[in-house]
């Protein structure tokens, strides 16, 4: 500790000799010298800082690094990847898969969220009025959340099987035609979206239900005294008061849905062809889906996803700020 000021002094001295403004040294000295309690503070923060750098900053930087170099397998091993700037991004945008993947991502994400949220909200409101077995029923609705994704996705794939899936047996029993849910380019995306909606309902249900607990009962009492029916109460009391919770639920749902790989991969591997390929699936396939890992384009697509998620995150913050300003 005692050697510290001396070192700083020396540095300040050389600075002075180099001809910088003479006013600088005293300021520097005060800034550079941490007193013991500040050192302790740094020490205590160090594990967290190290954690953040190792597990957040470095992977993020590495992802960007991968996407602006041409990492073939050989370059990956020998560490001599050529710097190509934004070429990987240009390739991604020019690829014939890009428009399909972008459209599929949009349809998959917004389709999933719209249904997850509205069904989750409907169920949350339904369970708000406690009735016999309501707790048990609500617990049952959490099952999709508890099952390992590989199990639920495989089960959905089996149910939607063209030849011997249960869904098609029901349809044909009522005289309908067999639908090739997972193997037709027209329905593959719809099928994985349905499965994902089912998977996402519990998350929406739980968060919205806890949001409902925070709305005081008096508001409803007052509303019913004013003669508002159930429908009116929902739109004029529940919905507006639930808005902050809804916003965060939708934002989280959006981020979770954007990055879904497992469900789609297990059910269709993004096929047939590219018909259920989302950006996340595309990225995964480039990196791990073929015998030849292409980390650079995969990282570029991954970064695009991060940017999309960030945009919506900022949009959320903006909306929240405006809301706070008006209220």
């Amino acid at each position, binding site marked *: 500790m005692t050697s510290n000021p001396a070192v700083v002094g020396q540095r300040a001295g050389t600075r002075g000799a180099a001809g910088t403004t003479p006013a600088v040294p005293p300021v520097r000295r005060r800034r550079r010298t941490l007193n013991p309690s500040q050192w*302790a503070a740094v*020490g205590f923060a160090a594990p967290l800082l190290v954690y953040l750098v190792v597990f957040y900053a470095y992977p993020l930087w590495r992802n960007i690094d991968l996407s602006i170099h041409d990492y073939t397998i050989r370059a990956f091993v020998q560490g001599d990847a050529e710097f190509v700037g934004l070429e990987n991004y240009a390739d991604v945008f020019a690829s014939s898969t890009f428009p399909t993947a972008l459209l599929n991502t949009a349809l998959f994400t917004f389709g999933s969220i719209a249904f997850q949220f509205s069904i989750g909200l409907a169920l949350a409101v339904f369970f708000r009025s406690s009735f016999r077995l309501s707790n048990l029923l609500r617990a049952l609705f959490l099952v999709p959340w508890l099952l390992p994704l590989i199990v639920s996705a495989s089960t959905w794939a089996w149910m939607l099987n063209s030849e011997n899936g249960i869904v098609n047996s029901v349809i044909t029993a009522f005289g309908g035609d067999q639908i090739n849910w997972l*193997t037709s*380019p027209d329905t593959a995306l719809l099928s994985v979206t349905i499965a994902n909606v089912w998977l996402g309902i519990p998350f929406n249900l739980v968060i919205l239900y806890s949001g409902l607990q925070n709305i005081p009962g008096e508001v409803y009492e007052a509303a019913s005294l004013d003669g508002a029916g159930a429908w009116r109460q929902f739109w004029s009391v529940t919905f507006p008061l639930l808005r902050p919770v809804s916003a965060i639920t939708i934002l989280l749902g959006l981020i979770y849905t954007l990055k879904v790989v497992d469900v789609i991969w297990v059910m269709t591997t993004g*096929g047939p*062809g590219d018909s259920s390929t989302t950006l996340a699936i595309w990225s995964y396939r480039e990196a791990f889906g073929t015998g*030849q890992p292409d980390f650079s384009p995969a990282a570029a697509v991954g970064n695009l996803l991060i940017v999309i998620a960030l945009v919506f995150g900022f949009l959320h913050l903006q909306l929240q700020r405006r809301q706070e300003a008006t209220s």
Partner: protein
Amino acid sequence: MHTTPRTRRTLAALTALAATGGLAACSSGGDGGSESTAGSGTYTWWDPYPQHDESSDWAGRVQACGEEAGVTIERTAYDTTALTNQALLSAQEGTSPDVILIDNPAVSTLADTGILTTVDEFGVDTSSIDQNLLDAGVVDGEAYGIPIGANTLSLYYNADVLKKAKVDPASITDWDSLTAALKKVTDAGSKGITFAGIGTEEGSFQFLPWFWGSGAELTDLDSPEAVEALELWKGWLDEGYAPNTVINNSQNTVWEEFLTGDFAFAENGTWQVNSAAEAEFETGIVQLPAKDGGVAPAPTGGEFIVAPVQEDTARYDVTRQIVECMTTPEGFVETANTFAYYVPPTAEGQEQLLSENEDLEPWVEAVQNAKGRTSDGLGTDYPGISEALWTAVQNALSGAATPAEALEAAQADAEAATS
């Protein structure tokens, strides 16, 4: 507790020390254990057989080969895809294991990165190995590994279903006779054939016997022959000879469908021999027919034994002894028996296997006719071509494009991927 500044400072220093200590531990944690001196100590061995644990015969054999060379072998098992990634990562860190058993299409990929020694470099004689099998590990004329056994695809049939439809399996010699048999079987009320058209390597693997059987080449995906092969599959789907589910079938699903007893035929591999024997119906195999008769070349499967480059070249001598121990004729047969589905890659080994179990005769024939996916000098171009090919199969079978359109797009994609 009342803390003086001094104790607080000590605490802070300790915390910082712990944090950096933890980091140091991490950075040395990925070591593959190749720091021991040559000729003694521990040699590392990776293989893709996690189903064989430490107490298995396989692990015992690996260990025995180590003991023969006077060292202990530290064996780690990964699943197939993880193994390639692990091999790449370890090469990047400079901690490659001494021996890896790796799926044959990955050999050229790893060789291309320069992390593998050539067979000549560590001095193993490969003259007795069947050329068509060795070829999968050849890059620019240099062999980078030795097949420890080979498997391939063939056409299983359900004898009961064929009997009911009055189809003689021996009559199936070319595409037309197969399609005629499928028609008879479906007319008799059974299901025809099932295969795997999934959008992964397995899809290409299963399509290749038909692709090659038509005379098509992987360098020319949209040739008329290739279109004919895809039209054959598409025709079966349209006629109802094959179920629509084949578009998403993996090879395991194909086998499950076959085991229901409804299907007359299933395209599957050597690894199902035991399961076929245990099926509730009588099974048999016919060779996958080429378009105009004869046996179509099916792609080879199976692992290669490779030796990654080591800084300490003195280690190669022991590595060579371990590899030789695994690749004697007796060793090959033992490997074949351990996995129940491996055909030895040498004539001597095949003879010995057949003398023990002559039922494997058609499989030995199939392996002799098989062809490596990375052969013909394709090497690292193969994965890109394969992805284009399975996408075309998916697009054609699902009706998103005609076979000709799908293959034309595939050829363009393959050219872009390999240029």
